[in-house]
């Protein structure tokens, strides 16, 4: 009995030792929701207001809208009121035409603008009050009421789009709303839409070109050095490695680069005078470049060197000599597809 008690005690001690080790290995910070304050990093505009009781807020703030509202009615939300801040001063004619075209209006010039606009003082602020009605559709009562406020080069636009009667009815609320607003301009300009995807973080985005890769080339991992990396393999397992790299400056010059590549495929370096044996002029996206063709005993190398805007661009394919011969035309087609936009 004492023996079994001692064994149990020993087992317990062992468990404590193993347990402590296990706990030590998992003693990192426990995940939790955190709340903290930092000095404001936000550079966009902030607007605050008091909303009339009859108005509701639209949660969608897409585009340049800093606020978006509607009028609550028994039939549901109607009309649309917005807040659009512009960092730069915006021409009243441009703004009027932006909305006027939507309503089928002919071009609004300075003369016409004078007729449809007035200056309205609300509180300490002076608003440009522009009323545009739908001229493009017969019987339409659609109307746009624009309130423009200018302050130190910033322009705040409050468009109220709705039926003529609704706008007339809600004009008092609109004025109260404008009176209640506190306007804080952003530190950066609100940019227009332009479709483009972000570049990978490790790559140099500076003037990166685009190209078309032959479909059978297989993508391999790019690195901080390689902007693109592909591999070509044939049935016998022979391989070619293709890469696109870019560096600031001329990276030692053509002779140094070509000699380094020649060394990689077992060809002795050449003097400047003999460089012509391997390089020939080529045009890449309407820019003068150099084509390097070097064939060693077992391996070959085809490359294009382009110096463009103080950067060197290298497009290089190297590997099995026989496979390189087959892929040469594909490589040249690839070079033709390179575009620096």
């Amino acid at each position, binding site marked *: 009995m004492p023996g079994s008690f*001692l064994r149990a005690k*020993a087992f317990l*001690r*062992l468990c404590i030792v*193993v347990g402590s*080790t*296990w706990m*030590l*290995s*998992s*003693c*990192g910070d426990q*995940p*939790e*929701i*955190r*709340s*903290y*304050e*930092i*000095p*404001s*990093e*936000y550079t*966009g505009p*902030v607007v*605050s207001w008091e909303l009339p009781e009859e108005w509701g*807020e639209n*949660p*969608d*703030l*897409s*585009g340049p809208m*800093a*606020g978006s509202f509607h009028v609550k009615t028994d039939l549901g939300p109607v009309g649309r009121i917005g807040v659009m801040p512009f960092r730069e001063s915006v021409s009243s004619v441009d703004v009027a035409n932006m909305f006027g075209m939507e309503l089928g209006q002919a071009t609004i010039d300075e003369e016409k603008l004078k007729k449809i606009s007035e200056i309205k003082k609300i509180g300490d602020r002076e608003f440009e009050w522009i009323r545009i009605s739908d001229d493009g559709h017969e019987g339409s009562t659609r109307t746009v009421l624009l309130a423009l406020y200018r302050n130190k080069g910033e322009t705040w636009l409050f468009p109220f789009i709705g039926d003529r009667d609704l706008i007339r009815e809600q004009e008092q609320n609109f004025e109260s709303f404008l009176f209640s607003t506190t306007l804080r301009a952003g530190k950066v300009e609100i940019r227009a*839409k332009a*479709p*483009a*995807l*972000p*570049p*990978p*973080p*490790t790559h*140099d*985005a*500076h003037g990166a070109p685009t190209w078309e890769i032959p479909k059978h080339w297989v993508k391999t*991992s*790019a*690195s*901080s050095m390689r902007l693109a990396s592909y591999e070509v393999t044939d049935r016998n397992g022979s391989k070619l490695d293709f890469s696109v*790299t870019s*560096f*600031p400056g001329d*990276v*030692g010059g053509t002779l*140094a*680069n070509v*000699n380094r590549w020649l060394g990689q495929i077992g060809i002795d370096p050449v003097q400047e005078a003999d460089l012509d044996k391997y390089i020939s002029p080529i045009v890449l996206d309407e820019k003068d470049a150099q084509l390097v063709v070097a064939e060693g005993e077992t391996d070959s190398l085809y490359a294009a060197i382009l110096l463009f805007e103080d*950067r060197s661009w290298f497009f290089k394919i190297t590997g099995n000599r026989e496979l390189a011969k087959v892929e040469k035309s594909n490589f040249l087609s690839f070079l033709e597809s390179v575009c620096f936009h």
Partner: protein
Amino acid sequence: MSKDTKSKKRKKGSLGERRKKFAWLVPLASINLTLTLLSLSMILVFVATLEQVRIGIRGALAEYFESMFGIWYYPEQFWGGEFLNAIPIPIPGGYLLGGLLIINLTAAYITRFQWTGKKMGIQLIHLGIIMLLVGQLATQAMQEESRMQINKGESSNYIERFHGVELAFSDVTDPETQRVVTIPQEIIEEGGTIRTADLPFKIQVKHFGVNCDFTVSPEGSTPAGLVKDVNRGVGQTANLSISEKEEDFSSEGLNFGYLIFELFDGTNSLGTWLTLAHPGGNHWWKESPKLSDLAFQPIRHEGKLWGVTLRSEREYLPYSIELLDVENEFYQGTEIPFNFESDIVLNLEGNQSRRALVYMNTPLRHGGKTFYQYQMNAAANYTVFQVIRNPSWLVPYIACVLVSIGLLWQFSFHLIRFLRKNSNSAQPA
């Protein structure tokens, strides 16, 4: 009885007493166990090295070293691979082997070693190795790796983790102060609901993943798949569609984390948003005007302007680093980097500052963090530091010093004894 005999008996008696007292540790102190564990460690390193090619360094670390055990499949291309590949082979993990080695060494230390000058070197060597193992375990548990990107002429006061994202809500209504509420990745569960007193709304997680492919669909196309419910923010305006993807563990892998969530004010839905985390930091979204709002999607609620974003887990520092200049050099005629160098000013609290040059293998150490030169783009005028916080960074150094002293002691002791013996035998009879 001579003094020497008495002393030997006392020492033997003390070791015997210790072995008796810690009898339960004797089996754990077995040298066979040590050799078995070391052999298994070699197998572990071999297997993990093979697997690193397939799943990347981070994947191999997580599967085999930061675990109690891992499952390995014999490679198909090896001899007999077509048959053996189907069999899952359990491999003891780093935590298991490391933990057992610590126990084994500690048990041996207590039950076998003698506290004599003659054995002092051996004891110090073993103590050093124990410290090395414990230090590695502590490093594994406490080390954090982050990055800090700074543009030339600007300063930064936060670092972002390489792995792991957080959902961040920022109340930017106040012009001076921004209130931030962050929800770490571990709390974001697909189908779960997140409530916190710090936010005026609750969040229902619809879809969440650590990596995805995303594309901008043509205008007018109907959202389908994961994004079919998205009706607010950039997901809607840019017609973003996504498809989930396995996490890429390779060192060059780019993981775009995604989250589709619906906000509720009580039972009233405020809409469904899609947010994406850029692996290089969400400031990269600014490069794409159509997606730039992914760094800050505005949500107006009860007169306050909130911004929401899924971003790399962020930590603010009580100091900032300003980048004065960057320089990168390559070996002439090659693409091999020769030197990356950042000229910086460390701005501390109380208007104190310190100028420093950070370059390869010469990091900046401050406030328990080490800033290594990591990436650089002189053309685009920015630098990226790898920031390591490792509270146990001194332990390996102390362990190495202990092992060195132990080795020196042991060799010196034997050398002196050998020289004495030689000089005694050389004396004429």
